[in-house]
Structures are given as C-alpha cells and as structure tokens.
C-alpha cells in the first residue's frame, strides 16, 4: 500500500501533465474561439451573445465564400502539384535508384528545406519570381522577353508554386515510406503473372501506396489551407486566403467574433478532410490486413 501511493502519483504525473497541457493549450483556446464565434461585435470591443449571425455572414457574404473557394482551389492545386512531383520522385528513389548513397542524398535534399526557416523559404520565391528576380533575368538573358515581367509574382500562380515548394516534403515523406514498404518481389510476381510494367504499377504499386498518397494529400492540403505567409509575401491583391482573412479579422478589422466563426468553419473543413483520409487509409489497411 505504501509502495503503491507514489506509483499512482507518478502515473498521475505521467498521464496528467500531457492531459493538462492539452486541456489548457488546446481545448481551452478552442472553447474560447467557439464562444467568441457566437458573440456580437460592438466596436471597438465585443459583447457576449448566443447568435448565429457571424456564421450567417460567412455563408451569405460573397466575399467570404470567394475567399473560401479560392483557398480550397489553391490548396487542392498545391496538393495535386505536389503529388504530381513527389510521386514520380519517390517512386524513382525507391524502385529505380540503384545507389544507396544517391537515394539518401536525394531524399535529404527534398527534406532538408524543412529545417530552413519557413519565412526564408517563402522569401526565396519572392526573389526568384520578382521583377528583379532570377526567373526574369534568366528569361531576359535567353532573349525570350525583352523587359522584366511582373506576371510571375503577386498572383495565385506564385502562391501555388511557393506553397508547393514549402510543403512538398510532407508529400514526399509519406509516399516514400509507403512505397518503401512494398516488397520488391510483388512487382516481380506481377510480371511473372503476365503483367507489363504499366499494369503492374496500376494494379500493385499504386493501390499499395494509396495510404501514403492519402496522408501526403491531407498534410499538404491542410497546411496550404491554413497558410497566411505565402499570400502575404507573393499573393498580391487577389491573393487573400482564408487564414489571412482570419488574421485581418483579429487584427486590423478588430472583429474577433467573425474571425472566430471563420476559424471554426476552417477547423471543420480540415477535420472533415482528415477524417475522410483516415477512412481511406483504414480501408486500405484492412485491405492489406
């Protein structure tokens, strides 16, 4: 009995501290935001209430729906572009790259930027795409254009490129892991049973890598969906994304209730995507089980 008490205490500490952490730093803030989302704005402060006006505004005001639509579009484009670049790369690394050293280096080259400050990575594209930037100098040196073009920066294209660059490691990692887990002899077995390389890819490699695709897609989508730096740096006038609007609502516009409602809508969308991809992965797993 005497020996038992400290053990219970340590168990309490071990489980209790993280639990407390979650409550204080995650659930509590969400609770506050949910509460705010029902309040009313009364410039320059807010007053407690329980009404759905903020949500109604979001659903009826074209401006917000537009931002939401644009954010969805950009996030999906980023995810698709990342997938299109990451999958062949990871596939090549896992199945075609003969040299272990080259594989490690190539993989690290893609992952390494994660250790570089996010802001710096976003700035890199500003310098590449800008009027004084590398892309323009290059195109001018080749004679394709005669004067610097401002077409590359401050638009949705620039955002998609920048966000893809920033978040592509999150697509590469899960796909690489999924592909690496596929035993090499499955492709051989498929060939043995008469399937050419393309059919083997479609019937064996691709289905077995869907959990990785789902995970990568979810990660890049959710990260792009919540991003506000890229729109700020390279987005330009029509580049407002939902996260930057939220930032404005909490900042300059001083409309915390509306900002909170927007945050909640965003959270719901992200959670929906995550649970959808979870379900996809689960079916892929029971498929594999």
């Amino acid at each position: 009995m005497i020996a038992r008490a400290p053990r219970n205490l340590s168990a309490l500490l071990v489980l209790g501290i993280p639990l407390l952490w979650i409550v204080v730093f995650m659930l509590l803030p969400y609770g506050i935001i949910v509460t705010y989302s029902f309040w009313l704005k009364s410039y320059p402060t807010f007053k407690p209430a329980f009404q759905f006006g903020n949500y109604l505004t979001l659903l009826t005001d074209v401006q917000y729906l537009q931002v939401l639509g644009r954010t969805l579009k950009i996030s999906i484009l980023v995810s698709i572009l990342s997938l299109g670049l990451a999958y062949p790369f990871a596939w090549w690394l896992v199945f075609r790259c003969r040299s272990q050293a080259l594989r490690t280096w190539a993989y690290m080259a893609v992952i390494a930027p994660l250790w570089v400050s996010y802001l710096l990575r976003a700035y890199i594209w500003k310098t590449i795409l800008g009027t004084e930037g590398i892309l323009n100098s290059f195109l001018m040196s080749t004679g394709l254009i005669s004067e610097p073009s401002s077409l590359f920066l401050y638009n949705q294209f620039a955002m998609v490129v920048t966000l893809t660059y920033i978040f592509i490691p999150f697509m590469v990692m899960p796909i690489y892991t999924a592909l690496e887990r596929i035993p090499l002899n499955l492709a051989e077995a498929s060939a043995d049973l008469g399937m050419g390389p393309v059919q083997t890819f479609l019937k064996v490699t691709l289905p077995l890598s869907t959990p990785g695709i789902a995970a990568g897609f979810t990660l890049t989508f959710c990260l792009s969906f919540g991003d506000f730096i890229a729109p700020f740096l390279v987005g330009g006038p029509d580049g407002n994304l939902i996260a930057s609007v939220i930032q404005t609502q909490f900042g300059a516009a001083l409309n915390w209730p509306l900002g909170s409602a927007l945050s909640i809508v965003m959270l719901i969308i992200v959670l929906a995507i995550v649970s959808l991809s979870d379900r996809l992965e689960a079916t892929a797993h029971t498929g594999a089980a």
Partner: protein
Amino acid sequence: MAAIIELQRISKHYSKTIIGVDDVSLDVEDGEFVTLLGPSGCGKSTLLRMIGGFEAPTHGMIRLAGQDVTHVPPYRRDVNMVFQDYALFPHMTVGENIAYGLKIQGRSRAQARDMAVDALALVGLPDKIDQKPAQLSGGQRQRVALARAIVRRPKVLLLDEPLSALDARLRDQMRIEMKHLHEKVGITFIMVTHDQEEALTMSDRVVVMEKGRVAQDGRPQDLYDQPASPYVANFIGTTNFVAGSLTGRSPAGTRIASAAGDFTATADLALPQGAEVTLGFRPEKVRLLAEGETAANVVPGRIAEVIYYGLGLRTTVELAGGTQVHVDCLLPDSLARSAVPQPGAPVRLGIEPHNVFVFAGRVAA
C-alpha cells in the same frame, strides 16, 4: 522427350568479382522435376531467376521449348514462379491473387474464378477463396502461391526454396504433396533448395551446384551412390574421408593404401600408381564387425565416442593414423543395447568394396 529448358553456357557476373552463375549448361526435360541443390550463395536463385526472366545472363543462351528467351521479359515467358516468401498481393483476396494472371490470358471473370476454385482445390485449400493473405497461415499462403503459379498452366514452374519458411512437420507433408502435385499437373518443376533431403525425396533429378557451377547432375540415387567429388559426397548425405594412395589394381578392384590400412574399391579411376587419392565411405555403409566376422575390407580402430539418437547409434571410431570416422548402426531391438560398444574398446570396421568411393587428389580436413 524433348528438352523444355535448355541452358547453354549461362553466366551471370554481377560485377568483376561477384559471379553469381559461372558457365552452366543444363537441359531440363518436359515434365521433369529438377532440383538445384547447393549451399547458400552458390548461385541457385540466380540461375532460377534467369530462367524466370528476372535477371539477364551476362553470357549464354536460354531456350524455352526451343525458343530463345534469353532477353524476353518475365511477363512474356510461359514460366511461373513460386517466390521464397510467396509474394502474394496483400490487397487482394486469395481468389483475386490466383485469378491475377488469368485475365491477361483472355479469360473472362467467371472463367478465372472457376479456374481459381479448381486450383485451390488442387492444392487442398478449397474454402479460402475470399480471404486475404494476411488471414492465412504460412502453409496456406504457400499453397495459394502454388495455386497462383500453376493456374496459368505454364510450361515450367519455378520454385525458390518453397518450403524453407515452413516448420519441420509441415515441410515433410508439403514435400509429399508437391511431389503428388507435380505428377498430377504434369508441368516441369525446377526447384531450388539447400536441403539435400528435400532434393532427394522430391526430385527426378538433382543438380548439385558449387560456387556458381554445376558440381554434379544426376538421379538422386546416383548422386548418393556415385558422387563425383568429395564436395558432392559430403553435401548429399555424410561421408567419411581417408587420405590414401593408389597402389595397384586387382580383379577385385582398385587397391589403395592408407595410414588406416589397405582398401579395395570397385570404383576404377584412370590414375597412375602412387597417385594421391581420397577414400570415402558413408557412415551407414560400414559395419562394426563382431568377433570372427569378416569383410572384404577390414579396418581396425578404437571407439572414441558413441551417440545414441533414437533410431540407432552413431559411433565415432579413431583409425590408425588418427583419422576419425563415423559409423551409423540401427538398433534392431532394445536388447541389443547391452551390446552397445563402449568408448576405448577396439573394433574392426567392415566395408564392402562397392561402398568405397575413390576421388583423385586430397581433400583438406
């Protein structure tokens, strides 16, 4: 019968120093059960994979049913493989796994399913068609892999250590079943194994490999009774070796002198008198002679150790000159145990001349 597989001077050099297979020529008859036998790393899998099309030989030619298939990819070869760890598709059911290679052969879905059912019945697994591989035991997976490979009725079925992942009891059972399966389907089987017992019990012909080359190729019995080299003699069964030299020939056979005594062997080697040779005889082909008993070759010795292993006794006997040899004898009944030889006791070994192998040269150890 015609050769279904012809390997003509096949080599596989992975690099300048790593040679997987070294100048192998081999014909496999249609319907034969051939086993490639050898220790790990001797190139068995490499040879099998070249027949399957997974590796291209660096030299030589492979013919399948008369056609040159040396550089034909696996998906265009009428050959199927049972992989060592089965390589079943984890995301497909057993039925889908088996039907996988049938659609490309132009079978309808219903036809493919019927064939899968038949194939499963053939391997004794009729009720698992809708399960996933992960729900099956190792032995069941092995049967599915077999069914998936034979359902396409290939000209040749390749099996890479098909039983190595199974436990001993199941392995014994599968040996018999696979032999029966071979007889039933009439497809040529080429199996790889490092287990000599497996090779001997299952195959019509055994190809013993050593360092990428063929050491000997023959019926199991011939390999056992007439091994071509000490390597084969010791890889298939066990063999006692005694160093000696050729002293002459008599009507009874070749005369050989050794530190342990003189031997007569039926085997005749085209060697000059005085040539260094190695004698070999199997532990189970030696008798411990009783008082007054005699044999064509009688070798005196002293018992060093006696090990009881249920079925009989393995006795280690030290011969004159210090060579130790094993002698196996079955225990006819429990009474005979009183006659168990004791360590230190002098014995006489009786060996018949036709049971004495003679190899040119001396073997180390």
